[in-house]
């Protein structure tokens, strides 16, 4: 046990008081002195639209964020997790936001040609409204809904219209008409039967997933070299009451999910990420890769030189025996 003199005790108490006062000040003032170093997705401004083209060269200037995925384990049916990582990039023009997802997938699954066949799919999720706390990532919660953009493979050209579209071996001797009247879901406006590449959905908890009041999200996808590239697009301020207004919020949380149809992933069986921050920046894409490598290299070189000097000094001086 240590015993300290009165001045030492007083000084220590004073320092402790300063530490606590500084901490309380930070908390009361709601100041966060630390800076996040995890990747944040930044949508830099571009002058010309990438026009839903996954192969547009402009995408190479958008900083990628690799989002790790894991199996969905929040609610039945559990499972998925076959895709471990998805690359996300984002850019925006004055009026539109573009988000591109890409991930490795060896199989092209675009036709649900049987009861045990499922299509590849992807989704991005936002809170329906900006709040200080993020909603539950699994379909949101009663006081904090989510807005989901859901893309399914094979829908860029519209949903299959006939049995033959679904399967080349398919045959049907009824339903002679292709008129919507003979397809009750389509006639009734069921969004599942509506030929949209991306369905705009909203949810406020498990079992509440429903189409948004407006379907204003566009999408296009390409599959090549065992890799999917999917681009989503929506007007920045083109939001209805249940959708996130991207024009008003410079920062919004975003999460992604991916389904691999050949692994029988559908519904809750999927690979999901956690939320990361999407910043809608008014600045153009940065060109700082070389600058950063330069800083890192210079730091290492200086450190190496100093260490060499230190080693030299140590050899030339008698050892400190204190």
């Amino acid at each position, binding site marked *: 046990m240590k015993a300290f003199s009165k001045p030492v005790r007083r000084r220590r108490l004073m320092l402790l008081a300063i530490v606590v006062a500084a901490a309380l000040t930070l908390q009361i003032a709601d100041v966060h002195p*630390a800076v996040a170093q995890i990747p944040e997705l930044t949508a830099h401004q571009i002058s010309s639209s990438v026009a839903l083209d996954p192969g547009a060269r402009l995408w190479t200037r958008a900083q990628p964020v690799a989002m790790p995925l894991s199996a969905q384990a*929040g609610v039945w049916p559990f499972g998925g997790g076959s895709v471990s990582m998805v690359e996300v990039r984002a850019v925006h023009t004055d009026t539109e936001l573009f988000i591109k997802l890409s991930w490795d997938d060896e199989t092209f699954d675009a036709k649900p040609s049987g009861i045990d066949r499922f299509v590849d799919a992807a989704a991005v999720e936002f809170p329906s409204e900006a709040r200080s706390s993020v909603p539950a990532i699994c379909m949101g919660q009663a006081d904090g809904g989510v807005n989901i953009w859901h893309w399914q493979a094979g829908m860029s050209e519209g949903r299959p219209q006939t049995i033959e579209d679904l399967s080349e071996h398919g045959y049907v001797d009824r339903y002679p008409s292709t008129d919507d009247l003979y397809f009750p879901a389509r006639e009734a406006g069921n969004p599942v039967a509506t030929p949209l590449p991306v369905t705009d959905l909203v949810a406020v908890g498990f079992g509440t997933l429903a189409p948004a009041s407006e379907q204003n999200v566009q999408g296009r996808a390409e599959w090549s070299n065992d890799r999917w590239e999917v681009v989503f697009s929506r007007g920045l301020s083109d939001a209805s009451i249940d959708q996130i207004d991207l024009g008003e919020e410079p920062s919004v949380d975003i999460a992604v999910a991916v389904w691999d149809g050949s692994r029988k992933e559908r519904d809750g069986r999927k690979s999901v990420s956690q939320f990361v921050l999407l910043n809608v920046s008014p600045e153009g894409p940065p060109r700082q890769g070389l*600058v950063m490598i330069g*800083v890192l290299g210079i730091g290492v070189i200086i450190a190496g030189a100093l260490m060499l000097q*230190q080693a030299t000094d140590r050899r030339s001086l008698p050892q400190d025996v204190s």
Partner: protein
Amino acid sequence: MNVATGSVAPGTAPEDAGFSTRSLAAMLIGASVLELVILRIGTRTAIHIPGIESVRGPYRLIAGFGRLAFALAVVLLAFLLMRLVRDLHRRGLDYLSASVLGFTLAAVLARTGAIDSGVLAAVTIAVVLVLMFGVFSACDRFVAVPIGLCALAFAVAATAGVLYRWTGVLSTGTLGWLTLRSEELAIIAAVVSGPLVRRGLGLPPIPSPRLMWTAVGTAVVVIGATVANPSSTHILMLWNFGLTGVLPAAVYGLAAASLVVSIASAARHDRPGVAAALVLLLLGGIGLISTYQSGLTIAGLALAALPGDARTAG
């Protein structure tokens, strides 16, 4: 009984200068562990529990306490980093002192927006690498290996992320491969830390029964958490420690048990600096998460790089 006096050995900090480096590190660890348990684990889990709004009052109280612990940890970290700058300078290790000061300045400048996240990342990685060499210079090799491997894992994960994000020279697959390698490095560091630290301290390889049971209990808890709720545990591991959780649960259990042995052995046998360094490295995690967690890692490495540990580190 040690009684503080005004006389100190050459090159050591005056005892009456307030809290010693060791005391500051201990207080930082206390605040940081509280913050980890309440904020980084507790509220991050609770926010996803349906109906948490019905216990809004107690939840906010606990979360407020966690935020206070975080604020305390940040202030203590700033004090500790400044103390380490001074201690390293007084021991003639100016390159290490300048490195810690460089990181602190970069973190402050990044907070004010004067430098961007890319430069901050580069500075952080460079400082970690420099301190890693400093650890190998200051510590005996048995103690330096696990700490150095932790630093290397941090640097590999951070560098992979930087190269991927800012230069485009890495594909997503390569980033994933490097991230996994960095995790394996960190796990290897943790697994070997127990035997190596005990060897470095001249202790028998088998710890006391009490410590052994504590380590086994820790392993059981870690394996249980990883197996019982893999999704939540993996996400918490990723967010808090930069670990993907893809290795077998038993590996994480073994790593945790070995860390408990190494930390307890160092703390009980006159090497509190090494024990504090290991705890701070654990709290800091692998790779770039925030300047706070990078600061914990850098403080841990700088503590380990201080020659003399208990005798001279305060």
